[in-house]
């Protein structure tokens, strides 16, 4: 009997401990007066801060301010989330994956945030995903591109409105083929980690489908943040390729552009920069005219001419004196999607629970500054949208970068259909693509 009572006590203690370890906000709706707490995670230091992390963070700041003031255009004009003001905590994504996971746990368990919106690095997204699921913490990835998040396993609490990397590579291949019909040889230079490898895999796969006679010549994978690309530029100069694909970003993209320009690589072949839009305002006339520019979706100069884009572009430019680039757009659409899901889930004055918001987010279709987003992949957790590519030109009269010759590709043309992995879709000839 004593043994049995002791066991029961231990069981109760265990249950109590287990209950205490769960995030309280996932269980009990909080009173409506409490602000909606958001953890915003982005690179605030290190090499990724300047091109991605800070524009993303600034995008969050400006959108949250507008939402709290109720000045965003309808249907986003209700104050904060469902009438409750938003309180944001900004956290630096820099550091090892273990540190990033620790910071995530702190946001959820210590700070008791209602949702975490963030993450640029694909590695960090992959590290955070299982923890978010374990803690049942609503998490919205805003920029990371790896398709593996929702292909490896179904997720309940993780969402990503921005399309994954496959769209960027397939869109780049379609634009290149459309502009260079007689292409016989192309090369690639991509960073040697998940993003660069995945980008090249999808690009070369799409090229095999769309231009089977064109051959991949030089395939280069320099180290991430290598900085010096002399040997790579020489290798490309000695190739017969008419185009070179790169998914370089941050300082690597800018360093490569400077170094290739000093040696005239862009005079011999067209550069396809799938993330080039993020650097055009810094590189300006140093970005070679004729470079094929992508922006991981229809963002920045590639964004549609809609009311949301006009609003977002204006408030961002007014505040930061520079137009928003694609990380800012991705952050904006992630927050707007979350707001709609929150308000769809809310009933009465009480805060909706995490499960209610997740259920409302699943399969959501909404329009933001970059156009329509449909959460149709990954069982309704991964968004798709149309993408656009164009050709760069520095307008010397206006002294401004511009993207001309823009081609738009419908979401279903450059994204795999639901239920099939991106690489298998490309390998199978991109069947079902609606272009």
């Amino acid at each position, binding site marked *: 009997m004593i043994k049995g009572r002791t066991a029961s006590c231990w069981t109760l203690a265990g249950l109590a401990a287990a209950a205490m370890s769960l995030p309280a906000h996932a269980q009990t709706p909080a009173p409506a007066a409490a602000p909606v707490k958001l953890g915003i995670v982005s690179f*605030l*230091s*290190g*090499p990724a*801060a*300047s*091109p991605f*992390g*800070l524009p993303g963070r600034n995008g969050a700041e400006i959108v949250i301010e507008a939402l709290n003031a109720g000045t965003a255009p309808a249907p986003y004009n209700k104050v904060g989330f469902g009438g409750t003001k938003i309180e944001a905590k900004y956290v630096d994504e820099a550091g090892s994956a273990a540190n990033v996971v620790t910071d995530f746990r702190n946001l959820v368990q210590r700070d008791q945030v209602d949702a975490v919106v963030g993450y640029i690095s694909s590695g960090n997204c992959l590290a955070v995903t299982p923890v978010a699921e374990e803690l049942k913490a609503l998490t919205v990835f805003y920029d990371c591109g790896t398709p593996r998040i929702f292909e490896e396993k179904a997720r309940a609490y993780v969402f990503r409105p921005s399309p994954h990397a496959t769209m960027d590579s397939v869109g780049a291949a379609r634009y290149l083929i459309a502009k260079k019909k007689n292409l016989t040889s192309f090369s690639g230079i991509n960073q*040697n980690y998940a993003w660069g490898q995945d980008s090249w895999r999808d690009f070369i796969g799409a090229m095999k489908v769309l231009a089977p006679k064109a051959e991949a010549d*030089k*395939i*280069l*994978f*320099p*180290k991430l*943040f*290598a*900085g*010096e690309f*002399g*040997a*790579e530029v*020489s*290798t490309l*100069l*000695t190739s017969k390729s008419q185009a070179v694909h790169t998914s370089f970003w*941050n*300082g*690597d*993209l*800018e*360093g490569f552009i*400077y*170094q290739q*320009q*000093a*040696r*005239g*690589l862009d005079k011999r072949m067209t550069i396809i920069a799938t993330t080039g839009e993020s650097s055009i305002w*810094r*590189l300006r006339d*140093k970005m070679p005219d004729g470079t094929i520019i992508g922006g991981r979706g229809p963002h920045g100069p590639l964004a549609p001419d809609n009311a949301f884009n006009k609003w977002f572009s204006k408030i961002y430019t007014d505040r930061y004196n520079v137009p928003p680039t694609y990380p800012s757009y991705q952050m904006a659409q992630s927050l707007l999607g979350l707001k709609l899901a929150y308000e769809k889930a809310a009933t009465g004055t009480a805060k909706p629970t995490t499960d209610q918001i997740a259920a409302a987010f699943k399969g959501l279709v909404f329009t933001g500054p970059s156009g329509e987003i449909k959460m149709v992949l990954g069982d309704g957790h991964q968004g798709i949208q149309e993408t656009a590519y164009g050709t760069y030109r520095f307008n010397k009269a206006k002294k401004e970068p511009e993207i001309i010759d823009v081609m738009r590709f419908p979401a279903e043309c450059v994204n795999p259909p639901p239920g099939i992995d991106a690489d298998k879709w490309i390998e199978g000839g991109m069947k079902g693509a609606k272009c």
Partner: protein
Amino acid sequence: MLTASAILTDGLVYAAYLFIVAVGLTLIFGVMKILNVTHGSFYAFGAYGAATAVGIYTNGDWNAALGFVFMLGLAMAIGLIMGIILERGLLRLVYGKDEVVIVLVTYATFLILEDVIGLIWGTQSYGAYQPMISAGNIEIGELVLSNYDIVLVVIAAAVAFAAYWSLKYTRYGRLLTTVIYDRETAAAFGINVTLVYTVTFLIGAALGALGGAVMAPKISVTLGIGVEVIVLAFAVVAIGGMGSIEGALVGALIVGICRAAAVHLMPQIELFVVYGVMALVLVARPYGLFVRAQPRKI
């Protein structure tokens, strides 16, 4: 033939970059027996200083050659100032402590200085490309070489020659060699080892900043650039032998040529080759190519 000449030229340019960065690191280790992680900060401060200088001289429409000298001068001056602050203000307090403790102190300083960069220059990246673009290029067959890269090789050769000549033929160089060989005996013979330490650290810091300055026009000057450099510099110094200047030169050439060959012939092993070479050298010569095994003192 084209590939061979491309490997040679690319290897030389990369080796020049590595040597300029590594020579200060190996000099400080040779004399002071300090594995100075802060060297990455000297590089970063040099690069940021150079970017600032480029901004000043391009806005002021200076003569390009004068602007280039100003760029190098400002960066090295920043290196010297940082060197004196760190050596006199911090490192002298830990001389004589365990080498691991000193490494940790320099590592902590490196992390602090990363934030100091953010406070001074902000988190945005800087482009200081003007010297490289204005230098133009030269076409040799199908290969186009940047004239700036040729200047980089010349600067590295000048640094190597100056280091060799100073050590062999100047009074200070001989004193330095004595301290490198045995600091206790050098002190017993009346050499002011403390002064030698300070001067050596200043020279090392200035060389680190020079490395950042000459690379600034080629890269995007942004937070974190010192991290990558310090890892590569350690590899070069380990190959050549810790504390050996000729070792740093040969180590840089080996790494530069091997990496260029890998990029041209087998790009998939480019990442591996630098550290593969280092591992091979250390298996055969655990103290590096130019340093002999030291008998333990009791």
